């Protein structure tokens, strides 16, 4: 059983997305990146991100990740902030430590693409 299935598939993404979005909106380190006029569009992107992080079905490639974050001058601090907010979200949803670690690993695997290094 994949991690995505273990934590409840699309339902888990739905449960996590609003909690996660609230956290990044109030995190001064990264809120500017997420504070767009089109909250629905931003939320859709986050659902796609969470699906990928949870190991669910997605079309993301390293190239997409690179393109999507190009020119944003992201640093290690920004990346860590997103990861911390994700971990806090998962803890709030009582996801087990093992699974959280696996999800963090997925995030770390795309770190270079996100930071465009």
């Amino acid at each position, binding site marked *: 059983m994949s991690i995505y299935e273990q934590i409840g598939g699309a339902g888990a993404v739905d449960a996590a997305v609003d909690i996660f979005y609230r956290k990044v909106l109030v995190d001064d380190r990264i809120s500017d990146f997420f504070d767009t*006029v089109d909250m629905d569009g931003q*939320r859709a992107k986050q*659902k*796609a991100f969470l699906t990928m992080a949870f190991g669910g079905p997605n*079309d993301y490639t390293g190239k997409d990740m690179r393109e999507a974050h190009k020119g944003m001058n992201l640093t290690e601090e920004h990346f860590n902030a997103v990861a911390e907010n994700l971990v806090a979200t998962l803890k709030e949803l009582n996801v087990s430590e093992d699974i959280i670690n696996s999800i963090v690993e997925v995030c770390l695997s795309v770190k270079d693409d996100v930071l465009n290094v």
Partner: protein
Amino acid sequence: MPSITFGESTFDTQDDETVLDALLRNGHEIANGCRAGVCQSCLLIAKEVALPANATSGLSDSQKAIGAFKSCCVVPSTDIEVQSADGAIESHKATIVEKTSLNDAVIRVRLQSDVNYRAGQYVSLQNDAKLMRSYSIASVSGTDKYLEFHIRRYPNGQFSNWIYSAASIGSELILQGPSGTCFYTPTDAPSNLLMLASGTGLAPMHGIIRDALLQQHQGNIHLIIAAKTSDDFYYVDELKTLSDENSNFSFERVALQSTDADIKQADIYEHIRSDYTQLKGYRVYICGGENFVKKLKKQCFLAGANMQDIFSDSFLSFTPN
């Protein structure tokens, strides 16, 4: 193989392809992302067809009510007609049957037309000179025998000045639409509604509130109207009557400058931030200018309202090309 009709074109699907894949294969540009039913980028609207549950999971009740679905999740088993999520552009004739001034800057226009709509949706109105603008509907379908609009007059507004000066009872318009998902849908469990309006954002809001009350909404409905000065409000008597007749409806007015004891003098954003800190489980409706909607949507979301329980419509000012 079942066929798909999209706008002017109709074509057959192949094997087990989804609606999204079939449209893309035929050269239609449809936004898409995860292709797995998660990101909701590929929403379309289906006409008169039963959709599988996974095609609408995660959508708001009002999106479901207009037939919105995730096109990456549907492999058609019968012929299907779809349109872009912006809604169908159907044209209807409309005739002006009433013009009444509501205050110094806002006029109420009532039209006769056979269009079907939900209270809170919007339409585009076009006059003889081909001037076209979008306005929210203030009336309630099935109850009111007319379509009602609240139109603000702008000094250089071509359409609003035409409505004020040249248009008269009997003038004909072309109406296109309706569009929009900012409308009332009944809730399974009683829930509280918070309605936020600025300016003529009261138009759709008044319709949505009456619609909710007519559908016997269980739970409280509270309306907050924001304005710059105490002279900017209209429809106060109508709202007072509505709250006298319905114990679950209340309203308040908030203005930056108030000379009236009934009107709270405050900044609307501060007022909502300090007095509405727990909106978990609420349904929130927000109608007004772009900035008003943007700021309050964020505030209400941070106060605990779910994104899919926030319904909004921003009024964009018309900029000539």
